[in-house]
Structure formats: C-alpha cells, structure tokens
C-alpha cells in the first residue's frame, strides 16, 4: 500500500483551515488569533503542495514559497502593531479594542 488518495490531503487541509477559522472566531487573545491565521496559511499551502504533486508542476511550490515570505512579513508587522496596542491599552484582549483614536 504505497499510494495515498489526493483527497485525504485535501480533507486534512480543509480540517486545518476550519480549525483556524474557529480559532479566529472564538479566541479573545489577539496573539492566538494570529496563530490561527498562520494555521490557515499552512492549510492553504498544504493544498497547494498537493495539487503541485498531482499535476507534476513545480510552479505551485514557488507560489507556496511566496506565501511563506508574505506571511513572515505579515507576522512582523502584526506583532509590532500588537506591541503598540499593548502599550496604549495595557491588554491584547480583542474585546477591548473597541475605540479608534487610541
């Protein structure tokens, strides 16, 4: 038994993506929300790599590489914003970020 149906990978990717969405919707800690976002990126990348393998194309792997770089940039900016919010609000609870103008 040396083969795996491609659907299994897609199902795993869908499950991970749904868990990421659940985390974004339910958690109040902004950092955990960010981690859930990373989980969703990861699920998308897994689907990309699966299709790359299915169609024997290398381009999808390059796209995943770009997604990774952009995700790294996004994390740098997001965490800097988080530190700044913590400085003014003394908390990173999403429920407390309810006013503009700091």
């Amino acid at each position: 038994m040396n083969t795996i149906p491609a659907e299994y990978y897609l199902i795993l990717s869908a499950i991970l993506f749904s868990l990421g969405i659940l985390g974004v919707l339910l958690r109040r800690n902004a950092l955990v929300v960010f981690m859930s976002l990373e989980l969703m990126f990861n699920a998308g990348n897994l689907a990309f790599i699966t299709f790359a393998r299915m169609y024997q194309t290398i381009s999808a792997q390059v796209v995943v590489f770009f997604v990774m770089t952009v995700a790294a940039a996004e994390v740098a900016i997001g965490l800097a914003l988080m530190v700044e919010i913590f400085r003014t609000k003394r908390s990173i609870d999403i429920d407390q970020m309810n006013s503009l103008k700091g």
Partner: protein
Amino acid sequence: MLIVFIVLAFVAVGTAVSMLVTRNAIYSALFLVLNFGTVAILYLILGAPFIALSQITVYAGSVVVLFLFVIMLLGAEKLPGGEPLRWQRFLAFPLVILLVADFAVNINRLGGTLALIDLPPRGYGEPVEIGKVLFTQYALPFEITAIILLVAVVGAIVLARPQQAGVSRRDLYKRDTQERK
C-alpha cells in the same frame, strides 16, 4: 505510507485543536511548532523537500520565536476574565459547520477524479529545480517579495520604536487637538 499519513494527520489535527483549546498562549505557540513540523513532514512525503525545510526555518524557526518573544515581552500568557461572549459561540459553530459542509461537498464531488499520490519521482522538487523556476519565470515576483520584506521590516521598526522620553504619541495628539481649539 498510508499509516504514516494517518499518524501525521492525527498529530496535526490534535495539535491544532489543543492550540485552540489551551488557555496559555505559550502552550499555543509550542503546539503550533509541532503542527508546523508535522505539516513539514507531509511536504516531504509530497515531494517538496525545499518547501519542507523552508517551512521549518521560516515558520517553526523565526515566526514562532517571534511569537514567543512578544508573548514573553508583553506578559500576555493568560488574559484575565472569563469566557468569551456566548452569542459569538452560537454564531461561530454553525458558520464553521457550514464551511465544513461546503468543503465536504466539494471534495466529495471531486472524489475519484483525483490522482493517487505515490512516492515522488526522483529529483522532483529539488532546490535546483525550484531555483530554476524561481529565477526565470518568477523573477519579478521574487524581487517584489524582497521589497515587501524590506517595507515590513521598516514598518515594524517604525511601529515599535521607543517613544521619546516622557512624551507619548497620545499626549502629542492631545496637545495638537487642544492647540487647534
């Protein structure tokens, strides 16, 4: 190989669930590392060694370390206070179940038409091949990502810069508005 896949899939889903459930943000970050590691092994099985290793260096290495730094810097392991709002839960679960149903229908519709994935052919997904495609066909996007990273780093420095002694940006803003009045 199927057994390896099933074990890895269970570990990935389990770590993702425990990342969401645990109350301590540091544990969440560590579960995230484990999740990234298992997905990296799945990439290896799928014939993407370059992506697998950059997943480990970029995600499990730098991104999660950045997360841990910020968590420890802010001392934000646990939030005070109780449960999230109830209505959010009642709204979130049906929406996610709807999404899962959507995924299930679509994958089920594709079922059977997709290929079986066996061991990758020799040399598939090697760094050499990826480099060839990356620097010829995708040379312009590659340069653009370099600029994106530069902008992100400059932006992060500007945002997180220590403020001038005794004067916060908020006070400056207040003074500004008062002067305008």
